[in-house]
């Protein structure tokens, strides 16, 4: 009886720590010569990234707004990590991490170019691999927003 109770407690703790969601994040790289601010329209969360650096931003759907050092804003529409790789190209741009306990993660690497173009990166890479086709809809060009 004690073993059954222990097993149930263990299983409950396992599930409680699992939750049942997959966190979608962007690994956003700044390929421009100055700091940029990157904001998720889904969550409202904003991060600041130095040139040549990468930072993570939780985001699953919607637009991304990039603000340059000069205060110009650029909108990148329909940035949806879960939808990347759902076409039939056979590429795997998404970095998927499961864990026995705790939530799973999917991460899409993106890199902003100086001409406000956003390229997808293969998992773990910091530069664009020109030999592998970009996912459908990429690279995305930023649309300048009115002040």
């Amino acid at each position, binding site marked *: 009886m004690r073993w059954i109770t222990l097993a149930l407690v263990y299983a*409950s703790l396992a599930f409680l720590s699992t939750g*049942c*969601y997959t966190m979608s994040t962007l690994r956003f790289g700044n390929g421009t010569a100055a700091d940029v601010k990157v904001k998720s329209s889904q969550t409202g969360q904003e991060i600041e990234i130095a040139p040549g650096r990468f930072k993570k931003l939780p985001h*699953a759907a919607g637009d991304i707004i990039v603000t340059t050092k000069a205060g110009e804003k650029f909108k990148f529409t329909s940035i949806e990590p*879960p*939808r990347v790789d759902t076409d039939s190209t056979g590429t795997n741009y998404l970095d998927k991490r499961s864990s026995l306990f705790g*939530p799973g993660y999917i991460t899409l690497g993106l890199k902003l170019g100086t001409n406000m173009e956003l390229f997808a990166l293969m998992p773990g890479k910091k530069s664009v691999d020109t030999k592998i086709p970009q996912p459908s809809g990429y690279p995305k060009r930023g649309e300048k927003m009115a002040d």
Partner: protein
Amino acid sequence: MKGNLKIVLIAIAATLTLTQAQAMRWYSPSTAHWLSRDPIDEEGGENLYLFCGNDSIDNWDLLGEKWKVDRNGGAKASAQPEKGDTVADLAGLVGLSYAEYERWLTPSSGTTMPQFWGQPLTGCEHFEIPNTVVAYWAGWGGGFGRWYVTWNSSVKYLRARGFNVDNRFHKKGDKLALEKIFVAKSIGKELHGLYFWGHGYAPYPSTGLVSDSNDELLFYSSPGLYYHMALGLVFACDSNSGRTALMSGGAGEIWHGYTGTLYPVPFRAYHAKHFIKPGQQQTH
């Protein structure tokens, strides 16, 4: 006094033997004839003294109540109206959208598709309606996980309600698996509902359903449905974000979803019996 009562009872029995009272007209078994005209008049055919085209084996006409839905475990269930019933009545009964009736209603041979959802029917038509519930397991822990949330017992319960349960376990790497199933089953007019255990996407609002191996299963913005479903028991984080995309919103719809994160506790009220009560969506 006793003798008088006996005579009265014999008289009543004799009357009932000679003429059987139906809901709306009288029938004489001895002469095998209806004693009055069919109340649906010419809608039931030129001969006003026939009953459902004289085919009482395959047709029945109880008059006055509602649709008879026979869920017998098949991919589709049979549905038969009584006089005056409409497709909108049926939609409300089984939880589908009346506005989408042409997408889920299948007229049987000899029956035509009603012109609109509010058209009164004669009571002699035959239809088929969706009867398949997709049970899709994309959760954690395999057999242990299913035991933890009473999966097998719930599937058994759904089958006992007369549904055809398509019981599937997610295979790692099968992208958009649920969307593909929805496309096939809804275009075939078989899809009634979904029983699902798995994950949703964060940050919220969740954009779709995903497996524990992080395979995307469907997106709420394009779930692949030809019509909206009647039954949704979706045990996934923030699944309420997908309710409008998946469900009919009709009177008889049955939905159970979550807002925010779902932390499963063993056996806690996850069984399908807590969400589908006897008589709901008319099983027999």
